[in-house]
């Protein structure tokens, strides 16, 4: 492994900065994790199983689906297929971040990718766009803080499952929506060409419903994002607005 060219002190500082960057999402991780853990417990899983799932699967929407499918005793293969399609969107997130980690070894890239979530992706993409780079220790700090909070939230939810009213789940789940709205606004704010980014966000929201009706819920997010991004690319080319080349400047670092 290569030694960080800025020295160990700088690496440690970046790691801590990454942990701090995760703080605004902690409320979200704890509340979504809490409701994911509680729902899995209600579905019949033990606290140990919930803890294991939060560490191995580590995906909010995926864990909700596992809980509901386990509750109805679905076949193992059908759960695998459902989760695979739902989590396929990580391909896009991972591909987006790849240019920021161009100089990284395979092992380190694997480490970062293995803890990739929608939320850490959102924080990292905003930071990458603002600063033009995403240091490895920073990403590690962000990832580990999120991972730990997710585990805590899940276990707390599993332990408290029998004590909380079902209506509370609805409020808790909204933390996710609030977080993504905040991340979209930050992403748009830091973009070089805001208009197309805003248009792309609005179009994605509009297209999700028809796409869902057409191809079903599991694939909807991936297909909508891919499709809308192509439309936005075409529109930005057609109006010949100078598009940003943030990815190449990130690689130059």
């Amino acid at each position, binding site marked *: 492994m290569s030694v960080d060219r800025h020295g160990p002190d700088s690496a440690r500082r970046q790691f801590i900065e990454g942990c701090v960057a995760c703080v605004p999402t902690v409320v979200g991780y704890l*509340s979504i994790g809490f409701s994911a853990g509680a729902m899995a417990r209600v579905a019949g899983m033990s606290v140990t199983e919930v803890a294991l799932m939060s560490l191995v699967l580590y995906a909010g929407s995926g864990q909700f689906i596992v809980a509901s499918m386990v509750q109805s005793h679905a076949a193992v293969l059908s759960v695998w297929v459902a989760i695979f399609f739902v989590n396929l969107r990580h391909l896009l997130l991972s591909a987006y971040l790849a240019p920021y980690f161009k100089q990284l070894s395979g092992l380190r890239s694997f480490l970062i990718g*293995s803890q990739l979530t929608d939320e850490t992706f959102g924080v990292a993409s905003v930071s990458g766009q603002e600063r033009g780079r995403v240091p490895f220790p920073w990403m590690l700090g962000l990832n580990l803080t999120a991972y730990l909070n997710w585990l805590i939230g899940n276990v707390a939810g599993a332990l408290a499952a029998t004590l909380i009213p079902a209506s509370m789940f609805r409020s808790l789940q909204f933390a996710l*929506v609030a977080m993504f709205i905040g991340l979209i606004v930050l992403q748009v704010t830091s973009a070089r060409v805001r208009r197309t980014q805003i248009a792309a966000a609005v179009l994605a929201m509009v297209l999700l419903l028809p796409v869902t009706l057409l191809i079903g819920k599991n694939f909807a997010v991936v297909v909508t994002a891919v499709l809308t991004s192509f439309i936005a*690319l075409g529109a930005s080319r057609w109006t010949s607005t100078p598009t940003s080349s943030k990815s190449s400047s990130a690689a130059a670092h």
Partner: protein
Amino acid sequence: MDIDPYILQVIVGCGALTLLPRVLPLVLLNRFNLPKWYQDWLSFIPVTVMAALVAQQLLPSEAGWTSRWPELAASAACLACAIASRSLFLTVACGIAAITAFNYLS
């Protein structure tokens, strides 16, 4: 350790199938210089993925759109708060406060 074999199979399999799309692009795309149009296309991925995720949470339930009004109203409050504050933390705090209030009213 109370782990059911069925649950263990589900968890391990799902974990492995989630790991692949998480890791493969980061590990493989590291080596290539990708074309400009692809990089421009990628620049829209964060907002389109996150907007689609938000829309998915706000889709009408079986009871129709009206049952979603607390979520829709709280989302509007979140959006206003995010634009005004540019703070992720305040946006999430505002969202939780708003949804709790609106759920109480509904």
